[in-house]
């Protein structure tokens, strides 16, 4: 017995839902990558700034 159109349409809907979630996840990962990079570089910059401040203070 073949599947009904209704069943096949439902399966397509499920796949569509999965793709929607995946796309949302991709977007979230991209955002988080940017956040991480920003944090890493901010930390590095702040360390550099602190070093410079100390150096200036010691002059």
């Amino acid at each position, binding site marked *: 017995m073949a599947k009904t159109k209704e069943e096949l349409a439902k399966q397509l809907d*499920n796949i569509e839902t999965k793709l929607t*979630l*995946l796309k949302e996840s991709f977007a979230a*990962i991209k955002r988080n990558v940017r956040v991480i990079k*920003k944090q890493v570089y901010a930390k590095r910059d702040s360390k550099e700034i602190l070093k410079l401040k100390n150096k200036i203070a010691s002059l």
Partner: protein
Amino acid sequence: MSEYSKAQFISTMAADEEEAGSPRPEMSMNREVSASRETGDPLKDKAATLEVALTETGQEAREVEELLRETGCELGDGKLGPEPAAIDLLEFEMCQNVDALNAAGVEFNRVKSEIERDDVGPEVEQAISPGQQLEATNDTASNLGKEEKERQQESIWSGETKTIQVDNVNITASKNFSEAISGFLSTLHLPERLYAGDRAAPIKPIDVYAAIAEGLGVKGKNIVFEIGDASFIDKTEDGQSLIVCLSKFQITSPRGGLLDTLSLNSLALGNNSGKVRMDKAAREDIASQTKDRVFGRARYGEALGYQIPAERQRAYYRGVNYKKLGEVAKSQNFKGGNSDSLLAILEPTVWVYSDPGMAESFGGKGEGVVFKLKKQDVDQDFKTEPGWQRWTNNEVMIQPPDDGAKEFNIPLGQYVEEVIVFDEEGDKMVGDLLPDVSRTFLKTKEEGEQYLKSNGEMTDDELEKYYNDPNKLDRYCRPLPKNDQLAFLGIDDTMGYEECRQKMQEKSVQIKDEILSALGRSALDNKWATMYGIRNLKELVMVLHNHEQNFRLPPEVKKVVEQRPGVIVEVVEKYEQLCDVERLLGNFDRQQQLRAAAEKFKKQV
């Protein structure tokens, strides 16, 4: 749909404030199918739209993977702080996403083929009770089983079978593939998605399938392997055998490590193909048993953790699916049918594959011909379809004519970059077909290995040595810790060496405390430790070792021992744990010394 729950996919990390209000990603599925492709059939139109969306999602997945890789390289030099660990987590999340995408692709292919068969039944609007629904589902499953098997018969390789034994399990498979399957089942595999610096626990497929067989209640130790365009698993009607259907690639990839462990695990859990007709309890039971079998070695401290060296990356194939390429070949009156995304031409035994594992399998046996195609030209002239078949590559394979191949023309000459032939017949065949294309003739295994070397790839032997050379243990291979709390999915992806090491160091501190406690902490802790300048576990071990070697315990210890006879047993037990710790820390010499000392200590006690 728990495995696809939103929570699993959406990263839990802090969202970027700047983008908190950014719109959700545009869903291509919502777009209308272009007028030229509209068929008037809502189902077919929907499938067409979804196919586009899948393609786009696959492309996007690759972009995200690339972004993660680039970011990992950019931040991964260790100079900028610990944040790259977060990138690792995102990569792991992405792996799960790609798995889910692959599963969606497989599912879509199946649905699409059913739609295209154009024999869907009438719509059923009749409401049914839960009980009826269950019954109906079972009926459907049963019918689907027959239907699926019939369909599989069309697409899977069929022919003479051979039964072999692997780990005391009878394996029945196509004669042509039995050797490859035997190797596949008995070889420790690493997960597919590994990059330089990754660590992973190996997995032996036979363990997985034996556990699944047990879980499914298969009475005999028999597994029947079928090779087809879908992954499914079931048991025979008589309940005597497990049936496993896998793609050719999963079985024939000779490079090792290309087995997608997560897919295998997913298969075990029944969420990969959707073809496992088991209820939730049965799946959980199988998951539990599989976990026990698969991670048994780790549970007994016998598993090894491999660190993947940079060179290994070359051994991984990451490509796209050249579906159109197959269609071109098919248009040249080659008989055959679509096997999933690939074209399998069974008569006149011309197989056009974009599957490197397949080509290499035959090449490795000195059979057939492997065509390497000009990727850019193929990309340009044939719209490549990314996504689900990410393991495919741009190679075309022709079986040797002694299998009945007739004269044929391959309209691919302009796309051929290189031809590798493995026998005289193949050489002649290609020479006749494509006289202008240069051929590389690899007559022997040595020549093959030389070829791999000259292309910057490691030979199989080199890879084997690479992983098994005890002198390289420090660099590449570490035992994984004993662990009876292993997660079924992802241990191999998540448990890295550093993490193991960290856990072991934590454990060593704990053991040190336990030893001191066993010896009478209040009496010994400060005084004893101070006396011997014990600052860490290693020093404690040294002190214990030296004392036990000479069997002269300090008076304080002797006093405690005399007061608490059982403490020696405790110490011996802890001692053995320390051996494990040393081993897990990679101090193998020290471990052996300790082991010998422990034996001596036990005898003397």
